[in-house]
């Protein structure tokens, strides 16, 4: 949970509106309605809106959930830089796109829905939100040098060979003290 990012809802609304515009447009063209030119426009506009809105933005707080297969769309949308990043631009773009839809019954619902999406985007823009692409994270391998303790460079100090040789006859005398104290390496 977190503070509301209006853009997330605006995105769902805009995607739905794109689909509704598209459907209305197809019906208008297929049925050869009066004013079918507006319907043809709605088909194109609907496809455009769907393509623009399909890639979800990265959330500023929390985990972002991608839509399936959105990576290529993300790349395309990202290519337009500030035009797609800024939500003011999107708000006005959607407001402009939706207007011709209002001239024909089949597309009027798509028009109103897109208008609402435009308003929500405006709210998002005023609150300072912007679109961030969701890109796959590069795996960073943690350097493992920290956890592996440095192996010793030199062998431990030992007394000369004749003292080290095991003297079975004199075990007491064979014991020796280490010149350097040995401590457990914690």
């Amino acid at each position: 949970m977190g503070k509301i990012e209006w853009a997330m809802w605006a995105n769902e609304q805009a995607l739905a509106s794109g689909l509704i515009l598209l459907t209305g447009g197809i019906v208008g063209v297929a049925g050869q309605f009066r004013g079918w030119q507006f319907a043809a426009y709605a088909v194109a506009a609907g496809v455009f809106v769907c393509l623009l809105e399909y890639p979800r933005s990265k959330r500023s707080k929390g985990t972002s959930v991608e839509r399936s297969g959105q990576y290529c769309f993300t790349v395309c949308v990202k290519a337009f830089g500030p035009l797609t990043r800024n939500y003011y631009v999107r708000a006005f773009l959607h407001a402009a796109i939706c207007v011709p839809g209002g001239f024909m019954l089949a597309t009027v619902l798509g028009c109103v829905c897109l208008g609402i999406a435009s308003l929500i985007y405006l709210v998002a823009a005023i609150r300072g939100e912007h679109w961030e692409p969701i890109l796959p994270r590069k795996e960073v391998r943690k350097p493992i040098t920290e956890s592996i303790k440095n192996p010793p460079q030199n062998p431990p100090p030992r007394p000369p060979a004749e003292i080290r040789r095991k003297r079975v006859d004199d075990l007491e005398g064979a014991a020796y003290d280490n010149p350097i104290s040995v401590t457990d390496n914690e």
Partner: protein
Amino acid sequence: MGNWIINHGLTSFILVVWMGINIFLFVWFYFFYDLGDQFFYTRHLLGSALAWARAPAAVLNFNCLLILLPVCRNLLSLLRGSFVCCGRTMRKQLDKNLSFHKLVAYMIGLMTAVHMIAHLLNVEWYNNSRQGIYDKLSTALSNLEDSGNNTYLNPIRKTDIQIPTYFVFTTIAGLTGVIITLALILIITSSMEVIRRSYFEVFWYTHHLFVIFFAGLVFHGAGRIVRSQTKTDPPHNFTLCKDRSDEWGRIPECPIPQFAGGFPQTWMWVIGPMILYLCERLLRFIRYMQAVRYRKIVMRPSKVLELQLVKNGFKMEVGQYVFLNCPAISQLEWHPFTMTSAPEEDFFSIHIRSAGDWTDKLIDIQMEFAWLMGVDGPFGTASEDVFDYEVSMLVGAGIGVTPFASILKSIWYKFKDSNPKLRTRKIYFYWLCRETHAFEWFADLLQVLEKEMEERGMADFLTYKLYLTKWDQSHATHVRVHSDEDTDVVTGLKQKTYYGRPAWDKEFEQVRKENPTSVVGTFLCGPEALGTVLEKKCVKYSDVDPRKTKFYFNKENF
């Protein structure tokens, strides 16, 4: 296959019946409008688009009736209570209320789309007929006036304004249709999982547009613009007269045909559930008005707040939940919390973890002053059934352990009182958690239980395994150093903490081996993914032979 039937049989049956009713309604009304004689002339103007609009309308009526029912919490609780005698399979169905609500909503969305597209075609063709673009019969039919002894067929009366949009916005059906479809679209977009899980407030407030939806729906048919031919004296036989439209009214066998609009029926379908839902909301309000007193407020480690409350006439069962409202934070928001106290105690408690705006504010202000709270509930969920099973497997992930806190405490009380209602003779408890510091308040409870069981020599009754799913090198080292000690270094309990996730196959094998002839109930409060895994394991390890072990899966959800 047999295992699947045991675990999913009744759900599938209900879905098949529901789908069957939908298909039946669609087909029946499609043919009613496509073949009925009284619609012959209407069909001449509209073709099969008439039937394509009316068939989804019937399905919509049925589904709008259904959609309010799964969200009547109190009604469902009542039903659950009355099914005490009727077996646990029936009661399990009521747990899936939200899934059913969503399914019905999808059907409503789909049928609205079909209905709307068909009506777009209808309006366009009515409009064209009125303009006289089509054949002679169409023009004649459209010209029928609504004056004196005559009735009209084509609802578009004006010829000067040619825009279908104008017609739609000046009729009741058109206007209500657009408004309620808009409401529906807003409800759907704000109910998408992403929005619902992250911004519950947006989802909840927008969802209340359903009031507008139902209001508009009831009036949608008031204009009676779907018209059929009525009987005249002498009768007007359309087979004879359809090609002689200029002679209508002038020859005895072809009087001018009369039409009337269909009686609006939607209100008959939805009025019942609307009243039920109104009662549901009233009941919630009444409960809210009853005073809730504080008994104790305790701040637990890891920002967990424990509230102990007392309310008159409040009776609970294990694992139930309540809705909490704090007007000081938000007048309208009600948030669900599972109760962590046992019914045997004279108060009820909830543990609230900081998980968002509302809970953060609640924790902050409770420490300063005990603000007024509203409590609605309790509402029952799957956990109530835990004592009915001879053997229970309880799985709680993270904060999902809360209903089981209530259960374990209740077990302890029933145990002490040697309560005969307790049919359970063995409980396996699995707690999965990411971090150690969330353990404290629950570890205290387990320590008490551990001691109690040892004193009575019943160490076998409860087997619990704690899994730390997030650990690192320093953890492992720490554990290794202390591995010889009697109690667990993390929790202080006698049972050792495991690391990583449980190997469910091994666990189910063990339960099956230790309980070869029992019915085992598996209860989960945790993420969906885990639920799917456990459900599969339940099906896999269940035996169709009624004498052998059978696993039933129950998932708690909000």
